[in-house]
């Protein structure tokens, strides 16, 4: 048990715990906060696994941008929660059954594979090295992804514009 493996297990526990808390919270703000912690844990795990650049991106994009975006929406829109039970039995029982089967099969698979027992050695892909690799071999994909982001930006703007055309019905029942 090296120090690295200790750190790994601690981080894994941390991630799983915060995610589990996030999934089970009723208050949306709490959910988002817990998830931010979970993503911080993930960022540290990335660092541990030799991807410092990705760790930075995880913090900036996931915890920084995406979660803050969620937070804004949740706070601005004031979705009321608590109308329903948190987990409807008709939904969580099948999901849990499926999850158990999935977990059992996954564990079985992982333990059956000899490759999964090989211990990972520490290594590091420095940001410079990573950047050179990406822009040497995947520059076209980078351009395409940038285009995708542009399209998403335009789409979000288009969806978010205020239109006077429709009288906004109060509830979905008005459509019937």
């Amino acid at each position, binding site marked *: 048990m090296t120090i690295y493996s200790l750190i790994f297990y601690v981080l894994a526990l941390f991630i799983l715990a915060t995610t589990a808390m996030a*999934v089970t919270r009723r208050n949306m703000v709490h959910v988002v906060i817990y998830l931010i912690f979970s993503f911080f844990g993930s960022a540290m795990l*990335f660092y541990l696994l*030799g991807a410092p650049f990705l760790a930075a991106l995880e913090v900036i994009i*996931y915890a920084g941008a995406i979660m803050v975006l969620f937070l804004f929406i949740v706070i601005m829109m004031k979705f009321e929660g608590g109308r329903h039970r948190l987990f409807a039995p008709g939904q969580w029982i099948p999901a849990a059954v499926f999850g158990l089967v999935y977990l059992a099969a996954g564990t079985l698979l992982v333990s059956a594979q000899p490759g999964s027992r090989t211990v*990972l050695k520490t290594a590091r892909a420095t940001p410079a090295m990573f950047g050179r690799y990406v822009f040497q071999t995947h520059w076209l994909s980078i351009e395409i992804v940038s285009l995708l982001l542009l399209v998403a930006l335009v789409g979000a703007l288009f969806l978010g514009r205020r239109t006077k055309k429709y009288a906004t019905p109060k509830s979905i029942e008005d459509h*019937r």
Partner: protein
Amino acid sequence: MIVPFGHVLILAGLLFLMGVFCTVTRRSLIMMLLGIEIMLNAAAILLVGSTLHWQNLEGQVIVLFVFAVAAAEVSVGLALIVWAYRRTGSVDPGDYNLLK
């Protein structure tokens, strides 16, 4: 020496399962979107782990793209949710049953 690769796999699997659970059980569009984020994160962890396992940088490159796709998906998804909420006043997926 960190840990066996299998442990990374199991961690990612558990995380993914939580994302699925969140997506299919929480009755809110926002929570469904968050569940998808959790699943994407699980995939990212797995990819970084396998980069280390096979000593091949391709995994990290894919993670980069996953981040980009996630950012795009979240921006459009949230815009859609806001739009739908303005029109119907609800974020419960059970209420979206016009086609029934």
